[in-house]
């Protein structure tokens, strides 16, 4: 049977939720970001809101309204940098509780129309429409209408035979878009797009492709598989080739286990590994303890412990190691993460530190392996 897979992406989600609360800001450039801002009253006048020009700090833009995006502002940009582009844009602090609330509302609204949903985060989902009766466009319009009624928000939907193409399609007609693509439309509508529109071709792969003279998806589709294999390795090359031809057999996964848990923090000021050793050590231990709490809450243990470091020059490094047995407690995590830390250069100031636990398994598996606890350790210490 022919599959009909939809990708639904909420339009400028965080910013749109804020505009529900502050309708007086509609039509203005609004940026969400920063932590310590006070939140204006719901009926505050536009001139009472903080402006980007007033901001001093190290926060980054979480979302920007389409009006703000016109100035070149995008997610992940430093707020100070955004202020140079649009000093008069309005700045609001993020309110993740509100975003999660609206996230639940829109997903519930979609589920009433089409129940087979794969959760892809706070503001996007895949929906399998294959089994639903009726015309694809009608179903998609029903979903959009249902989301609008439940939340007052707009979304963009792409429908195609698979997830890969739908993800591309939902971007084509934003905001409030609806794009339906048949397999026979790939050459006319997908191939002219740049290769990095394919989810899975990141900046590095895109650069490498550009180096080979491959810019569009059409050029990627026409590329010699041997050439791709020589530059990207067998499996990624095969995937690139399949993706460019619009082939993707991944099912819509309606239930999912968490893959990893992580905690990270950006410091108030950059810290030096030697000079601020004790402060860093305290923060590091604290992150490990919070990750251990997260593991406990999700009732899982993990075998892979990793760290993430961002230096003052924004260079980011990660290191991880996989342990013989899953760990659950903060001290075990701290020890393993400490060993990871020994594998990164520590000669520059650090602005961000993170701890991540992967290869998760049920907590019972960790508790059952008690051998390590009773085996004595050789004491090499001085």
């Amino acid at each position: 049977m022919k599959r009909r897979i939809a990708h639904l992406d909420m339009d400028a989600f965080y910013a749109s939720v804020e505009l529900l609360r502050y309708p007086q800001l509609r039509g203005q450039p609004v940026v969400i970001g920063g932590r310590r801002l006070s939140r204006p009253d719901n009926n505050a006048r536009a001139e009472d809101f903080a402006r980007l020009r007033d901001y001093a700090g190290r926060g980054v833009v979480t979302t920007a309204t389409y009006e703000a995006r016109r100035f070149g502002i995008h997610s992940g940009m430093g707020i100070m940098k955004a202020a140079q582009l649009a000093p008069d844009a309005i700045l609001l602090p993020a309110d993740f509780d509100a975003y999660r609330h609206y996230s639940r509302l829109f997903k519930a609204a979609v589920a009433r129309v089409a129940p087979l949903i794969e959760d892809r985060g706070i503001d996007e989902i895949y929906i399998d429409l294959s089994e639903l009766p009726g015309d694809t466009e009608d179903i998609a319009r029903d979903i959009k209408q249902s989301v609008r009624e439940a939340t007052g928000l707009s979304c963009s939907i792409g429908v195609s035979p698979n997830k890969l193409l739908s993800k591309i399609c939902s971007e084509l007609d934003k905001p409030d878009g609806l794009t339906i693509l048949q397999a026979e439309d790939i050459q006319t509508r997908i191939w002219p797009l740049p290769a990095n529109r394919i989810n899975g071709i990141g900046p590095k792969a895109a650069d490498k492709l550009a180096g080979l003279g491959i810019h569009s998806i059409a050029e990627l589709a026409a590329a010699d598989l041997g050439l791709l294999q020589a530059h990207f390795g067998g499996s990624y090359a095969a995937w690139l080739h399949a993706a460019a031809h619009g082939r993707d057999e991944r099912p819509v996964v309606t239930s999912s286990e968490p893959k990893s848990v992580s905690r990270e923090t950006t410091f108030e000021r950059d810290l030096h590994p030697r000079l601020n050793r004790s402060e860093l050590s305290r923060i590091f231990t604290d992150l490990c303890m919070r990750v251990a709490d997260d593991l406990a809450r999700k009732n899982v243990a993990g075998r892979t412990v990793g760290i993430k470091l961002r230096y003052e020059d924004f260079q980011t490094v990660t290191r991880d190691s996989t342990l013989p047995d899953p760990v659950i407690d903060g001290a075990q995590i701290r020890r393993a993460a400490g060993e990871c830390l020994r594998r990164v250069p520590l000669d520059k100031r650090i602005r961000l530190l993170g701890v991540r636990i992967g290869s998760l398994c049920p907590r019972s598996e960790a508790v059952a392996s008690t051998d390590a606890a009773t085996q004595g350790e050789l004491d090499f210490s001085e």
Partner: protein
Amino acid sequence: MHLLTTTRDAILAPLQSVAGIVEKRHTLPILSNVLIEKHGEQLTMLATDIEIQIRTTTAGDLGGSDASLTVGARKLQDILRALPDSAEVNLTLDDKRLTVKAGKSRFALQTLPAADYPRMNLPEGEGTRFQVTQKTFKRLLAQVSYAMAQQDIRYYLNGLLVIVDGGELRMVATDGHRLAYAAAPIEADLPRTEVILPRKTVMELARQLGDADDALEVVLAGNQSVFRFGPIELVSKLIDGKFPDYERVIPQNHPTTITFDRAPLLSALSRVAILTSDKFRGVRLVLEDGLLRIVSSNNEQEEAQEELEIDYHGDALDIGFNVTYLLDVLNNVSHEQIEWHLADGNSSALITVPGNAHFKYVVMPMRI
């Protein structure tokens, strides 16, 4: 272009000595390949995983033209192995394809250019050089390598410490629970040099070194080591890290020493080990007047017990150990007898060989 015609084994033997280090999965596709250089009557094969490189050069009556190429190591090895022992094999290279012909069999394989194959530079400078018999080096490896850690976060334990000092060669390995030490004299007078060989290098050397008195030449220089033996040259990176001070954990003055015949102790432990589980390998050693009882049980309430008569006349002692750590040492020393030095149930045990200061094994007990 005809490359060579020779017996199957003249190609397979050198291929097998280099192909063992080729990894199945790679980010760099060419690393699944082996580099083959045919020059006159010389055949050179080279493989690498970037950390280790093995090269072997053999000579024989090959015929054909000179060429260099790289081809999938595992595929070529599987093909040659599957051919009859007596097969005469013919290799030709045409338009980047290597054709292997033998009797009525014919295989056309893709090649990648030899110029693209990564090669490790040999270390510069003199470094520390010495010669030792393959037999001695292999024996020391066997006596300690089983104690290496595997995928430990303390990456420097996933390898084997090699020390040369004056006229002595020492090896140490530990996983933090037990430690093995072995030494042997060498004909040299060298400044003290310490390196950590990666686990994979250790395994490869243990596999390839012979049991005869043939020479092994070792060079330790910079962050690399080179091992030359027979037709083989193995270049390996070293683990950059500080190995723990092993001398600190070798106990000096344990009050009790018991001498065991190795074989009966090994047999008794092997039998008791049957009723331990994969998750819990603990066995209890209970020392009483003139008697050692070895006891194990599992969580299905099954129990095993062995008794050995021993020359022990002190207070009763009850110590738990991971049986694997005991079997490992008894399986890997070849002496008739071993000496077991003990203090109490919380202290490490030291296992040595009577009248021989060149072997030591330290193992921490388990709380059971």
